[in-house]
């Protein structure tokens, strides 16, 4: 049986354009700044219909034991992440380049406080 279209539905009826779009709330990533922390740290994720509710859900899920003083919620879809499978290309080139670290260099004589 084919899906009813809007004009086939009697008055007052609703047909979602794509039910899948509305059946699941979007995913949000949660960042919490703890009472002793200087920066927001990724705490986890949650589902919420919109930013205001995401913030409230974050408060319930991630700060209920007095962990936080500040919360950020970010739509997970808005995060551009590096490809976990391409880790080699991204990060390994830093290995073996010890000259990028200060400890590679010997301290010059007569230079104090270095």
């Amino acid at each position: 049986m084919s899906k009813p279209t809007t004009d086939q539905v009697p008055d007052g009826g609703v047909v979602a354009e794509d039910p899948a779009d509305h059946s699941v709330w979007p995913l949000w990533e949660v960042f919490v700044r703890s009472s002793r922390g200087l920066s927001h740290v990724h705490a986890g994720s949650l589902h919420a219909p919109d930013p205001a509710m995401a913030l409230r859900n974050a408060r319930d899920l991630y700060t209920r034991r007095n962990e936080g003083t500040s919360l950020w919620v970010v739509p997970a879809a808005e995060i551009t992440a590096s490809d976990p499978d391409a880790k080699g290309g991204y990060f390994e080139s830093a290995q073996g380049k010890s000259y990028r670290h200060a400890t590679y260099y010997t301290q010059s004589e007569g230079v104090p406080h270095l």
Partner: protein
Amino acid sequence: MSEALGFTAADSATRISAGEAITPEELRSAGAQADEDTARYALILGDDSLILAQRLGHWISRAPELEEDIALGNIALDLLGHARFFLTYAGTAWGKTEDDLAYFREEDEFRSARLVEQDNGDFAKTIARQLVFSFYAHELYRRLVDSSDQTLAAIADKALKEVAYHQDHAGQWLLRLAGGTDESRQRMQAGLEAVWAYVEELFADVEPTAELAGTGVAVLPSSLRENVMNGLRHLIDQAGLEMPDVKAAFGADRTGRFSEQRGHILTEMQVLARRHPGATW
């Protein structure tokens, strides 16, 4: 307030702490002692929170999303916390513990309002019930912090911040359900209609509350009406819904009479404690 009662600030150096909130155990060990009328008043306040907590707990695993399970569960636990304070304090007048009062009183000994006893219904009805109760409770505690009874004032001070969040939670959902689909809007309006008959009972000047209000211990229920109803009207207008025009249900005047639902709620709430008195785990 809390210093006057000798409550200790419980904040610690650990990341997870109870903050500076007082606990029912501290309330008891601080030697708070309620007189008969004050205890009866505390019982009215405590029973509302206890029954509503029990009702809300039923949503766990049944809410529309996991996140909402947790939100409603948190609110239920906050309310249970308030009930513990009020019942512990009430119990000091009769040599009873909070558990004695919660689990071993009969149906007609409870003083809860009919509003909090109403069935959960669908999510919208639960939100409607939450909305009314949290607006009422917020206004009540906002005033009760000035009570001449230091213990009631300290409990109200702790509860106020929590019910402010409950108010916000219900308000956010009211706006979203009203502004969602035709179906959600219709259900939200139906939810309001379903609970509205039980709003008026909250403002009845019953005994011993009315007398205690005269001495500054209690808040006169009828004096809460204006602010509560204005707050609700403002939000319902904002949501584009109609203020229900429903005849008030016959109230029980906090005497324990006239409740269809209470017995069923207590059966579930009390069965474990009664089947295994004193059980711990």
